[in-house]
């Protein structure tokens, strides 16, 4: 086994909210042409027929208001621009039209094409250029948060394409249950920010297996003490609220929450791992976003292995069924480890959120059959830990 995998003891996944790859990392193409980002010529037509190009004008807050629609019918429009023929080709031309539908403001609809310059996102862009950035990590479903967040937990959304409550179906167990039931048992935790933010995985895991959960404070303490479990899933703060220490800003970067607060959160997670040398040497940290939030990306989502479920037209809202045979829009995804060569760009491979339980299962459990076809087919990512010796460099972030 490569020394990076020999040393690996912990996998940590941080899943942020609602930003597309081009919106957050597209500008990096100018620094490194290998990164499948923006040339500046990408565009959509607005509702008057005028060309709206991508522009480096994204702001931290108060710009994408109202929250861009990212439910299944809206994402279908964004990807296919209203084409309902069969077969049809994804063209990524419907983003401006989709955003126009919410306020009927032509000028405002252009803002869906805005992206961040790297200097505004020092944490995300530094990690992307220092470690491994994925050119082809897609949301699992062309739809919203709850069904997309099901895929890292279960490898499927059990037929859901919406935000509705769903219940898990046998024989598919969550990655946490698989690990804990293994012989010998492995360890796993879902760290939510605090009780006022909570988790998005409620009716199945929080209700039935609360022992899987801990808070972000506990995550930081576990990093310091070197007691992280084998697998950790970390959720950001989902809302602005008062805490014991004062006002607590949402850190999920979901519009219209402040993007800088999310940068701080990512930096703190990274620092917590890096500042424990033994943990740093034995941990792989994946930073990924659940879905694109309705924001522009230029890469058409590919087809994928169906997961065995079908969403009916009443559920999709498009008048067409969905066989879970096409991925959602591309999202930022970065893998951090001192065993990854600097400047790694993962190209020519397709990843999605089912890659997470697929990777964790493969590493900690080996062969494990009762999983969705999607998860079984998903690419895994630990081969990126390829260096023969561990790096001794790595960025340092000052957060205070």
């Amino acid at each position, binding site marked *: 086994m490569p020394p990076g995998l020999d040393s690996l003891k912990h996998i940590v996944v941080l899943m942020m909210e609602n930003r597309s790859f081009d919106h957050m990392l597209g500008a990096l193409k100018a620094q490194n042409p290998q990164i499948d980002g923006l040339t500046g010529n990408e565009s959509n037509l607005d509702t008057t027929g005028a060309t709206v190009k991508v522009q480096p004008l994204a702001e931290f807050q108060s710009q994408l208001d109202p929250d861009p629609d990212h439910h299944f019918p809206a994402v279908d429009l964004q990807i296919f621009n209203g084409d309902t023929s069969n077969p049809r080709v994804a063209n990524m031309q419907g983003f401006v039209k989709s955003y126009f539908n919410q306020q009927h403001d032509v000028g405002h609809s252009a803002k869906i094409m805005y992206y961040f310059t790297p200097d505004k996102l020092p944490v995300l862009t530094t990690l992307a250029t220092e470690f491994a950035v994925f050119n082809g990590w897609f949301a699992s479903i062309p739809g919203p948060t709850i069904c997309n967040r099901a895929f890292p937990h279960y490898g499927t959304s059990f037929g859901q394409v919406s*935000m509705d409550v769903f219940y898990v179906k046998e024989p598919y167990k969550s990655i946490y249950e698989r690990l804990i039931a293994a012989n010998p048992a492995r360890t796993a935790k879902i760290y939510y920010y605090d009780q006022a933010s909570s988790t998005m995985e*409620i009716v199945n895991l929080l*209700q039935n297996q609360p022992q899987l959960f801990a808070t972000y404070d506990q995550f930081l303490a576990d990093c310091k003490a070197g007691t992280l479990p084998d697998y950790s899933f970390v959720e950001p703060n989902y*809302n602005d609220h*008062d805490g014991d220490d004062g006002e607590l800003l949402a850190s999920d970067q979901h519009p219209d929450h402040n993007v800088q607060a999310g940068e701080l959160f990512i*930096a703190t997670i990274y620092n917590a791992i890096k500042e424990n040398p033994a943990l740093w040497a034995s941990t792989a940290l994946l930073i990924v976003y659940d879905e694109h939030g309705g924001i522009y990306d230029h890469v058409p989502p590919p087809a994928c292995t169906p997961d065995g479920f079908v969403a009916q037209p009443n559920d999709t809202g498009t008048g067409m069924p969905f066989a879970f045979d096409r991925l959602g829009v591309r999202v930022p995804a970065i893998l951090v480890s001192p065993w990854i060569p600097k400047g790694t760009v993962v190209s020519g491979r397709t990843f999605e959120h089912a890659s997470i339980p697929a990777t964790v299962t493969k590493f900690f459990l080996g062969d494990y059959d009762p999983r969705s076809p999607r998860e079984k087919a998903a690419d895994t990512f630990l081969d990126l830990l390829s260096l023969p010796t561990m790096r001794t*460099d790595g960025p*340092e972030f*000052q957060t205070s």
Partner: protein
Amino acid sequence: MAVIRVPQPPKGAFNKNRPVSALLKNQILHLHEVEKRFPPAQHSGIYINRIKTEGEAADYIQKVTARLHPEGAKRVRFDIAAAGETRAKSRTKSKRKRQPKRKKL
């Protein structure tokens, strides 16, 4: 490599009166689905249809989550500065007491 300074969000970033997003509305619905099964004496007493702001959502989310995961209320004592942690805070002109500075070990 030089240390990279991560800017703090501005004072006005915090807004617990921000209208709830679709995501938070759905999180509330999921929590309510579970709350309905609690004995009546353990209900939050909050009508979810009256939740309009993030602060109100946080109150409800905290109450139901506390019932499901009471361990989440425990404060974990450790040195936040040594872990490189700082929470993004927005200082307002409220009469909140000034917190003592945390010392680095």
